[in-house]
């Protein structure tokens, strides 16, 4: 075996096992969605990582819902080939728009790696309007999201050809927060809502290795996701006569929580 092929094999096995140092993951999929309600509207996040059923495509997805509006914040797909000298397709979408694509024909053994850095972005959702007499309390809101996705494909071409193997990995780190803003003022009364909830902070690694001669690929997922930590509040102030300043009459937590955490067996959620 040549040095190049040996290196490729080691890397391929390392990818298949989850990390370069060989830590073992223990599941073939990760699918968690958690949410709450604020002002009668849904606030939630979902992380999905694994293999698309009955295909060899790997996927990592992040879905957010803010004030009832659903957004597909991240979809990363890697479709390795089924044959030697086939094409590997890589597709990344953010908020429904294609931001990255790659297609590579595997000609010889080797590894390709792509990094996609999705800068923090803020998307606003339609306003919810609430009339109180002549004043309209408009509650604005939205999501903030950022992610880093590293995609690796490797090919090891061997003879006989049925011993050739393909490996693919998606490493995704995604974080999203939902926020609300609302403010109304009518002479000596002012009121509003505000705050931010960390909808999700997740890392998910999906690894796949498939030998040409085998029917099914080996897929391993290691993932950890923390959900719904944060604080949304409402307040009402009245301008006081004697003190000539605003006096808080109401200070109410619409949502306040330290959040949940879920992880595959080889990862540990941080202590609270």
């Amino acid at each position: 075996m040549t040095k190049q092929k040996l290196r490729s094999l080691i890397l391929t096995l390392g990818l298949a096992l989850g990390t370069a140092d060989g830590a073992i993951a223990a599941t073939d999929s990760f699918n968690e969605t958690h949410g709450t309600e604020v002002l009668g509207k849904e606030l939630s996040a979902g992380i999905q990582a694994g293999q698309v059923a009955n295909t060899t495509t790997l996927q990592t997805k992040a879905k957010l819902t803010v004030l009832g509006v659903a957004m597909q914040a991240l979809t990363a797909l890697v479709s390795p080939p089924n044959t030697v000298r086939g094409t590997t397709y890589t597709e990344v979408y953010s908020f429904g728009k294609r931001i990255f694509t790659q297609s590579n024909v595997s000609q010889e053994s080797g590894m390709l790696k792509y990094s996609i850095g999705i800068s923090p972005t803020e998307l606003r959702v339609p306003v919810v309007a609430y009339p109180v007499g002549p004043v309209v309390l408009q509650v604005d809101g939205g999501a903030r999201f950022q992610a880093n996705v590293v995609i690796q494909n490797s090919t090891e071409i061997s003879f006989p050809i049925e011993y050739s193997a393909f490996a693919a990995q998606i490493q995704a780190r995604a974080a999203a927060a939902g926020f609300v803003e609302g403010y109304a003022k009518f002479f000596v009364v002012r009121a509003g809502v505000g705050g931010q909830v960390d909808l999700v902070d997740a890392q998910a690694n999906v690894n796949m290795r498939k030998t040409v001669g085998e029917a099914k690929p080996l897929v391993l997922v290691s993932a950890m996701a923390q959900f719904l930590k944060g604080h949304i509040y409402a307040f009402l102030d009245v301008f006081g006569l004697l003190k000539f300043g605003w006096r808080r009459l109401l200070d109410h937590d619409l949502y306040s929580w330290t959040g949940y955490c879920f992880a595959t067996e080889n990862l540990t959620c941080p202590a609270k």
Partner: protein
Amino acid sequence: MPGKITKSLWQRGGFRLLAGALFVAGIGAVFASWTKSENVDRAPATLGEAVPEDFTGLRFHPAENFRYRYSFERKIEFRGFGNALPEVGYHGELTFDVLKAGEEGLEAVAQEKVEEYGGGMPSPLVKLSLTADGTNLKMFTTGKTATEEERQHIAVTKDLLSLWAFPLRKDTVGSYEATVQAQPAEAGQRVLKKTKLRYVEASAPVIVHSSHWMRWDEKTSLPGDLRGEETTKMGQKKNDLFSRTTYRLRLIAVEKIGMVKNIQFTKAEDMSLQREALMLAEHPDYAGLNWQAVLAQLRELEKMSANEQLSVFGDLVRLLKKDPALLKKLLAELPEADLRAGADSALFKTVIGALATLGSPEAQAALRSIFDDPNCPVSGKGSILAAFTTTQAPATPETRAFLAAKMGSEDKDVAQGAAFALGAALQGSAGDSAAVEKLRAAFRAERANNNLPGQLAMLDSMGNSGRAEYVPDLRETVASGNAELRARALFSLRFMNNAESADLISRGLSDPETMVRESATEAIKLASWNENFRAPLESCARGEKVSRIQASCGDILRAHPQMASN
């Protein structure tokens, strides 16, 4: 900020402050006799006769150069998040000086005086134009910069006008559906009752109860007496906001005034009350922001968790919106080391993200400049292009030209990223046919070369745009023999939102190829809902043989339950 309010209120005298504060505590006594003895729902004495639905038949036709004075009373009770809160109430006078009146309608200048605020100081003038049937109201102000207090007076005037123009189906929240019924006459005067059913906009609050009553004054051809009660709510259970508002307007005097002074009213006013950016500066999440503190946090980003970084990013965006002049200071804070690190630098990405989110022409120019910096690596360019693709801010013509030029980049990733960003930049805008043609020409060139990956990428670019000009090319590709191309073309129809694209996507649900059917479901998830999707989705949910596609069809149907027909 409280100091600012103190000075402005103090200038109008302490007595007015006293009046302003007292209303919160005890104004309920003003309404006590009215609310106890006159229940809106019992106003018609008897209901012996059948009443037709949706009846108005009113003609607003007062006399020119006359002043019509109304007294008004308004009370608001609200409960927020499980707590009972003090009532808010105010009363005063609303006057109309009629400029013109005829068969088509009337023009008048309206003004209100609220006794509780400013000691009855009159509000700014509002000119109104109302059609004779009372269903269409336009309003104008003088366009002079108004103080915050004057703007709130204009809000009060809009609110009162929306109540006074009884046949109108629009208020300060938005348009609504309502029924109007004739009631038995009182003292020979026509009486009508209006019930608001729901607001047209889905984001508007729920109307729990609505009852509006009007007695028409035949002598003046104007409403003589109006009263109403409305309850709205937002939220559920203990985290709800519930309000009950009541009002009364009564015509109390008619006076001849001679010619009305000629004043220019140049600014058209919308009935709905828009939150102003200026007011948002007083919001606690904005008021406490400090540039130096955010700057210090930017320098520590690498030590923070991803969500902590997002929190700093959010504060940075708020600061830049509040004070656009900070943009130059922000750019000065981006050191060369972080520029060279590109997407590996949290500071670089946060600055890029803030500029793209802000989206002002200056911010977009800064992004282009960073992109073209020789020290900016490919990863950084990729992040900038991705930011241009996902931002909600409209792209300037300069940015669109920039992206079109970068499609010719030698780096394939940069060229494709620029095409994706250019497609997204065309979404929601009309025109720029040159950019539309550039993407179309690039797609056709790839097709002529039989370059499958190139065609797929250009289909994605067209799909990002949602522009209907691409439907013919996509239709042609959907009919092609290549399953990958068919699937991608179907998905590219997702933002086009017209009948033909909806029809093509729906047909894709019965394509013989699995990837095409799956692509159709993904397109429907992102498209604006169209009822024409329902039947093919139901068929898919019943009989699709690939379980994940069948599950997707079911999920989409559950997210769009069928509305019960009335």
